[in-house]
């Protein structure tokens, strides 16, 4: 639960990990005065000696000091912002420091000692939102920017903020409002038109509703890609110990690609490694540390593999040369149950072809596996083909129809998905002659869903639309 106080808060705004520089943000009215306690100004354009005296939107060079010992922590640049013209709408200070984790921790500690508390997650955006600095949709987009790590993610997040997605949604919403108003005039009043004219108008309503439905559907289809951009594509490497998983993992995460974080699984004995493949954010999951026991099932690692494979978008199923067709077939069934993209990887191809390969392929094809690739991680053979499998999977996800408009936020997706369903019901009502008011009812429910993203409410604006556009009779 967020607290709704307006105490000064601070947090590091650049991502965790080591970087060249880091930006630490402070927000809250009076935060400059508090920060004076742990800051020293060396050079500024107007010879100001205190951070709080810096005019808004100017910078100063200086350092952060420990307020209890007066010892220098790091040389930094301070920027001062005045309320209400800042990101949060409050007085703000930004400290650009060096990027090491230790320096950042030390600066935050000094700020804490000066009376500035650590921010809760998302609290800056929350304040900006409460102070009227951004709409709910923009606030969510900012959260996505904060979480985005690759170029494509930034693009998807940016399109919501810069208004590309907003524009599309506004267009859909406005059109739906117009149709709702039109339906109301059918429902509420004797329209004084003859039947042919009325039917023609109704056809126009239908066409518009269908168009909006198509657009919403396209947006929803784009969520497949959008979700991967915000949550990453999960690829599980499954197979027996010594089937070549780790070598493949190392090759795929080779030094030319940035390893973002390395998280050791806590309960499942898995390793997750984040890489970018052709701009696509991917998490590779390696089921390491499987114990060998007498229990055949356990030694196959099936139990853990199922765990790791669950929730994965793609599975690479490793088949070393010495694995028999029966061994492959007995284990794979449970593993691939929930996943619709499974690739059989004949590993260690440098050590020779699997003698059962033909039989294995035939059996796996009966389970719906279509993709078979021989690789040698040692000799970097066909690794690019494996990458292509990932790229193709991503490219084949829907979403191209909306000119690159991608929904990345799961809440938006769920609202639009529901809106889409309700709009389909609205169209059904017209097709089945259930009456314009029934269509209108479903349409309003649809607009309610969209309104939860755009922050509008339905009934408040509907009556005005009617009055401004139509002559109303008896």
């Amino acid at each position, binding site marked *: 639960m967020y607290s*709704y106080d307006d105490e000064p808060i601070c947090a590091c705004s650049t991502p965790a990990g080591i970087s060249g520089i880091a930006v630490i943000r402070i927000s809250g009215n009076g935060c400059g005065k508090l920060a004076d306690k742990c800051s020293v100004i060396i050079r500024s354009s107007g010879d100001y000696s205190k951070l709080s005296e810096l005019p808004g939107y100017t910078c100063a060079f200086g350092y952060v000091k420990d307020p209890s010992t007066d010892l220098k922590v790091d040389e930094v640049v301070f920027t001062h912002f005045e309320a209400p013209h800042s990101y949060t709408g409050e007085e703000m200070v930004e400290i650009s420091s060096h990027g090491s984790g230790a320096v950042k921790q030390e600066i935050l500690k000094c700020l804490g000692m000066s009376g500035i508390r650590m921010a809760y997650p998302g609290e800056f955006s929350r304040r900006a*939102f409460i102070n009227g600095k951004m709409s709910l949709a923009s606030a969510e987009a900012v959260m996505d920017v904060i979480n985005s790590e690759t170029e494509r993610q930034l693009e998807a997040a940016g399109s919501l903020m810069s208004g590309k997605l907003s524009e599309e949604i506004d267009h859909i919403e406005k059109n739906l409002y117009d149709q709702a108003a039109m339906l109301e005039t059918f429902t*509420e009043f004797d329209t*004084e038109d003859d039947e042919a004219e009325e039917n023609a108008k109704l056809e126009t309503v239908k066409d518009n509703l269908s168009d909006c439905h198509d657009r919403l559907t396209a947006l929803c289809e784009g969520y497949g890609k959008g979700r991967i951009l915000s949550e990453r594509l999960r690829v599980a490497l499954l197979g027996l110990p010594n089937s070549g998983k780790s070598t493949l993992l190392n090759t795929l995460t080779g030094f030319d690609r940035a390893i973002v974080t390395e998280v050791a699984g806590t309960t499942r004995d898995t390793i997750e490694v984040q890489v970018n493949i052709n701009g696509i954010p991917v998490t590779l999951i390696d089921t390491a540390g499987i114990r060998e026991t007498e229990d055949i099932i356990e030694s196959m690692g099936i139990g853990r593999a199922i765990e790791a494979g669950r929730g994965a978008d793609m599975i690479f199923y490793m088949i070393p040369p010495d694995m028999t067709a029966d061994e492959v077939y007995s284990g794979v069934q449970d593993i691939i149950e929930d996943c619709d993209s499974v690739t059989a990887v004949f590993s260690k191809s440098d050590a020779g072809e699997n003698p059962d390969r033909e039989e294995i392929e035939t059996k796996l094809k009966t389970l719906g596996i279509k993709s078979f690739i021989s690789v040698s991680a040692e000799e970097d053979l066909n690794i690019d083909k494996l990458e292509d499998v990932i790229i193709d999977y991503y490219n084949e996800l829907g979403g191209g129809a909306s000119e690159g408009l991608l929904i990345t936020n799961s809440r938006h997706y769920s609202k639009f998905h529901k809106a889409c369903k309700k709009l389909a019901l609205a169209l059904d009502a017209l097709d089945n002659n*259930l009456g*314009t008011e029934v269509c209108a009812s479903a349409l309003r*429910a649809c607009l309610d869903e969209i309104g939860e993203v755009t922050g509008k409410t339905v009934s408040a604006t509907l*009556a005005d639309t009617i009055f401004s556009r139509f002559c109303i009779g*008896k």
Partner: protein
Amino acid sequence: MTIREALEQKNSFEAGTFDVAVVGAGHAGCEAAHAAAKLGLNTILFTLSLDSLANLPCNPSIGGTSKGQLVREIDALGGIMGIMADKCAVQMRMLNRSKGPAVYSPRAQEDRVMYSIEMKHYLENIENLTLKQAHITALLTDDEGKTAGVMTEGKSIYRAHAVVICSGTYMEARIIRGEVIIESGPDGLPRSCGLSDSLKSLGIPLLRFKTGTPVRVNSNSIDFSQMTRQDGEDDVPPFSYRNEMEGILPAPSEEQIPCWSVWTTDETRQVISDNMDRSPLYSGEIKGIGPRYCPSIEDKFMRFKDKTRHQIFVEPMGRHTNEMYLQGFSTSLPEEIQEKMVKSLPGLANAQIQRAAYAIEYDLVDPLSIKASLESKVVPGLFTAGQINGSSGYEEAAAQGIVAGINAAMLLLGKEAVIIDRSQGYMGVLIDDLVTKGTNEPYRMMTSRAEYRLFLRQDNADERLTPIGHEIGLISDEVFEKFEKKVEAIALETERLKKTYVAPTDELKVLLDSVNQTLPKSGESLADLIKRPDVTYDLLAPIDKKRKPLPRNITFACETNIKYEGYLSLEKEKIEKFKNLEKIRIPEDLDYSLIKGLRLEATQKLAKMKPENVGRASRISGVSPADCEVLIVYLEQQRRRKDNG
């Protein structure tokens, strides 16, 4: 003025003591007085003229789109408008039959004079109720500023702990025809003077609105051969559920009186545009704000320039008069122009105008100053209902009247106010809109104002409101038992339709062919068949062998519930969300300035409006969803703090 001050006035005297005093005996006042008296309170009803009780000064009709639903709701709650409208109807129609059942709306042409006579006689026989002809000029309070009674023009003082003012269009009214302005109430009746000053002096904010009415013409002077005839219908249920239960149905269509319709001509348009400079609306003489949806004919031509003609309905005023009402032809142009306008209409070339049209301006209370119970936020014990709250229409007035009457009684009985919410009835939508959003023009009910329109049907108002009416004591045990039997019958028959499967026989094929539906491949339930377009309950009679004869209202309800099941469940989902916010109560004494994070505009609006719950707060203009979120969190924090002691 306080009671003490009133008693000190020269010639003043104590005329009596009542629990509830109702000022004004129009549609709101009659319902309010009836409800209060029925709930056991000693009630007095004041009117300027006992011969004009429950007058219909404008349309001689009751019901219509969304208004028909209101009348049925009033009846379901235990009110009297439905019974009167059934009794005095001269023509009944069900509007919107070409549309879905959610917007079917009963509408009746009424005998205006009989309506007034019947209502007066009915109220005269109600126990605990006194009718009194008097001109009330002041609301009296006690020394603490609470409602204590009223004073008449003749200085009689009536003590009452609760006062319901239903002043209609009478307070400081002016009638306007072109350049001619007369200080008068509607329909040639006296206006009410002094009462609005009395309210103002107590700190109640007032507004000024305008409305209008068309001419009445003698039917002997009309050539009906040039008009389109509109007859009444059979198979329209009565307004009153109690009549429906007893089988008291409207007269057959052949005994009903027809209405007529014509279109305005180019000449009409010409006469109006030549004389627009003489319209008080455009010359600036009328300052009150008029209704957008019931505009005068000159307003229609001015605002919708692309429409070259408008439809006018010619309606009978009753069985014992030749007067015909020109619906849709209201105007405030001078009388000499009215003459020309009317004569430009087909069939009205020789029209003999019996009453001229006029616009009327009147004082009202800003509805933002009243609570959802219709009690004033300024003067405790004062209730207002009807046009004084900014509404328009007899049905809207009556709906508020019954709520105000009930809540005046609840207040005196020490019980919690009865609030009908937006999901329970059009009357809930009406009152909620008025008290949370306010209005800057006379507010008319429309079905599009209701979010849960598929639920708020004319056929199920009893399911929505009769249990409430019974609980508070307006609906008798006997009526309630019959109601419960009806609900049970609907449930049983719906269940049977869902569970009865029919085979794809040739007999079924013939039935389905007749509505262009294909025969199912295997057996299908009767309910699934009814869900198909154009398949009705009645259509399936030949193949539904076990069907027992049931009244039309029951089979209609079953058919509706089944046909619209999917859509009704969408609305149910919405209603649940809505109720969640309505449940979060806001203490009346909440200090909004203590809530951090609330925007200034929201703080001011909320402090002024004092909404009863978060749902209502969310509907106040200027309060954003973010503000509501902050408010919810704050209330939750307070609650937890309290729980933790």
